[in-house]
């Protein structure tokens, strides 16, 4: 079930009404049933996989808590990690490895024909984080199986995050939340802005991006550049839009999920970018992989290796394709380069307090670097990605005729899309400001109801209501 579908428009109010109408002791059960129903909207059989990983991690976490022997605890942790990664490997990476083995060895090993279960990368990581926290002693294992199952399957963030920590979510799911206007108001605003980003901006940019990236060899540098910039905006609006809706939906039930994006394209360095982009995943990798690998405590060389390794794995988490691995490696390299630069005095001055011009130039360079890496993320295969890069720098004449639809989009259609992108940056500033209680007394604050009404009108009228999926569902 998609957030931007008619089914969800019916499902969500029913869940909210039941949630507040039911006595507190039954709420968890209703939410659990609703979450599984939400998940079964895609491929009902995969709910059993979700249940299986939940059961394994529930048992393992409780055993870890009861066991005092360190060896046993470690063994149980390994069992949990192997189960989660095993499922992830089989459903997501098996065919990738088979394909590469077949290519290299000339063998003909058979592929698995299972579909990728929606959200599998998200919920397995959430569960692994929980078991590791219990193992480390920072968290008590949940005794109530149903409530633990709800933590894993909580529908607002089940299929595309944010990847929540048990320490933040579990206790909130147990709270007796009262019906409060503040929760509805804050949640509703998030939902509206998230929907605007998704259906008005991301989905209106996607036809042009899809068309150019389908046959990149047919387009000159001009269209390749526009499509790549548009994709950078599209993926941000698509994913942060989803996160905002998820946060908003949870908030109407009094649950505060973690923020997943904080205006990442306004960052001035790659390091800052990763502290603002897909925060729940980057902090997950930091806490459960980068730091256990030694983080930055084992010398400069080891730090660089750790960074590269974490980002390559992060790329691989996104998808079983070489393009994602290259994308991750590129970001790892950017960070290593930044780490080397950080030893320069001028970099320290820049990162601590840049002037306005330095900020603008820094943000501009960051956007170019990130967009360049997106080429690998979006291209269908690495060969297409290299074609795009080659044509971006060599195919200056427009001797390759753009497709009719691109011509049809013309300057006016393009102007509209650029107008949408500008509205994103202004809107993001305003919405973030309003949610933090800024602008009080200003016109925006006074007329905020009209602003949200205008956004709703744009969502209804300008939204691309075709069959467009959320990009991150494929991960």
């Amino acid at each position, binding site marked *: 079930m998609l957030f931007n579908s*008619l089914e969800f428009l019916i499902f969500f109010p029913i869940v909210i009404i039941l949630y507040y109408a039911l006595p507190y002791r039954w709420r968890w059960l209703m939410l659990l049933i609703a979450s599984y129903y939400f998940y079964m909207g895609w491929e009902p059989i995969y709910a059993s996989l979700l249940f299986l990983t939940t059961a394994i991690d529930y048992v393992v976490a409780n055993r870890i808590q009861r066991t005092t022997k360190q060896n046993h605890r470690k063994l149980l942790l390994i069992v949990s990690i192997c189960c989660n990664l095993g499922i992830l490997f089989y459903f997501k990476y098996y065919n990738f490895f088979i394909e590469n083995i077949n290519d290299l060895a000339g063998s003909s090993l058979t592929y698995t024909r299972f579909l990728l279960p929606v959200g599998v990368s998200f919920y397995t990581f959430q569960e692994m984080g929980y078991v590791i926290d219990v193992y480390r002693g920072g968290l008590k294992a949940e005794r109530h199986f149903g409530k633990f199952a709800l933590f894993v399957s909580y529908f607002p963030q089940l299929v595309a995050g944010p990847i929540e920590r048990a320490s933040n979510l579990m206790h909130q799911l147990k709270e007796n939340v009262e019906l409060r206007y503040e929760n509805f108001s804050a949640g509703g605003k998030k939902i509206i802005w998230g929907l605007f980003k998704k259906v008005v901006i991301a989905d209106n940019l996607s036809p042009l991006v899809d068309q150019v990236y389908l046959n990149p060899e047919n387009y000159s540098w001009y269209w390749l550049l526009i499509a790549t910039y548009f994709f950078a905006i599209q993926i941000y609006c698509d994913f942060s839009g989803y996160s905002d809706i998820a946060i908003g939906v949870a908030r109407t039930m009094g649950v505060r999920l973690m923020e997943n994006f904080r205006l990442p394209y306004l960052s001035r360095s790659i390091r800052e970018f990763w502290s603002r982009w897909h925060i729940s995943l980057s902090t997950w990798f930091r806490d459960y992989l980068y730091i256990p690998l030694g983080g930055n405590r084992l010398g400069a060389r080891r730090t660089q290796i750790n960074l590269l390794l974490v980002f390559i794995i992060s790329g691989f988490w996104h998808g079983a394709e070489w393009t994602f691995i290259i994308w991750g490696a590129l970001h790892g390299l950017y960070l290593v380069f930044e780490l080397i630069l950080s030893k320069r005095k001028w970099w320290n001055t820049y990162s601590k307090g840049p002037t306005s011009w330095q900020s603008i130039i820094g943000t501009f360079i960051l956007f170019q670097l990130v967009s360049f890496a997106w080429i690998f993320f979006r291209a269908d295969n690495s060969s297409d990605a290299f074609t795009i890069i080659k044509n971006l720098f060599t195919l200056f004449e427009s001797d390759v005729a753009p497709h009719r639809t691109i011509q049809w989009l013309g300057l006016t259609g393009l102007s*509209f899309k650029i107008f949408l992108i500008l509205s994103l940056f202004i809107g993001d500033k305003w919405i973030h400001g309003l949610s933090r209680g800024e602008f009080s007394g200003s016109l925006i604050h006074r007329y905020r109801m009209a602003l949200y*009404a205008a956004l*709703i009108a744009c969502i209804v009228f300008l939204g691309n209501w075709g069959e467009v999926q959320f990009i991150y569902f494929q991960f």
Partner: protein
Amino acid sequence: MKQIILKSLQLFLYSIIAYIVLCGILTLVHVNGRTAASWATSYMHGTGDHEYCTFKDLDTSTTRYDYIALGSSHAMHGYDPRIFRKSGYTLFNFGSSNQHSKISYMLAKYYLDLPEKPIFLIDVYHAVFQGEVLESNFRFMANIPDPAAAFSLVRSDPDLRLFNAFATRLFRNEKKPNTGCYSYVENGYCQNTDTISNSLAPYDPAPSINEERIAMLDKLLSLLESRNCRYILVAHPMTKAEGFAGVHQHFIKSLQPVIDKHNAVFIDQTLETYLNDKEHFYNQTHMNQAGVELYNARLIPLLKETGFVPKEK
């Protein structure tokens, strides 16, 4: 609770006002000869094009038609009223871009309940029986003169985009169309004389057929039967692209239960070989004028043979 309901109602009211204002602005403001709405959305269609001319022709015509052709752009470019006239028959071509069975049903219901009880030539083509095909809905929404028929489109296909297209009708100046009818000839027919320049693309061997579209064809045939109108199913010739024969057979298999149920006569010319890909088509699936002349010259005797000619002629 009271505050939540009151504020929600307030937001709802404001949103309606904002929607009306936005809809009005985007419909009334024109950029490069097109409404801002059609620039700002990927689906919105302004008035004009062949559907505009088709409705205009039908509304002003005093001819008693022997045949009405329904179907996609292949019908629109495939049944020439001038060739039928030479054989002594009158034909009005109500084919339109991506017209699927739901649209054909709506047209038959609202516009084609003609006293002369014409014979319906229903052109069937696999692609309009697949997936989401809304182009024809938007084209008709922009051009259909009867608001009730336009609203029935919104009701029949609940889709926000169709509702938006309906809303823009309320602000539009109906007097002149946004675009002309460039390839339009007469009586709904559009002509193209180009020939194929590209190579033919192969087909996906087993396209998924939308069951709802098949059910709507069934409903259309039942409607025509209830009005005592005769009808015949026809399939136009196609190029010999790789894999198409399999696609067509798969499609006909899906159609067969409806054909059997209504005991319908079906003239299938799709896999016939008398047309030449290079000379008689202007693209992979559409015949050009030379192709139409050959096809219609072969079809008319077949209609006579099967008894699908006006009783008085």
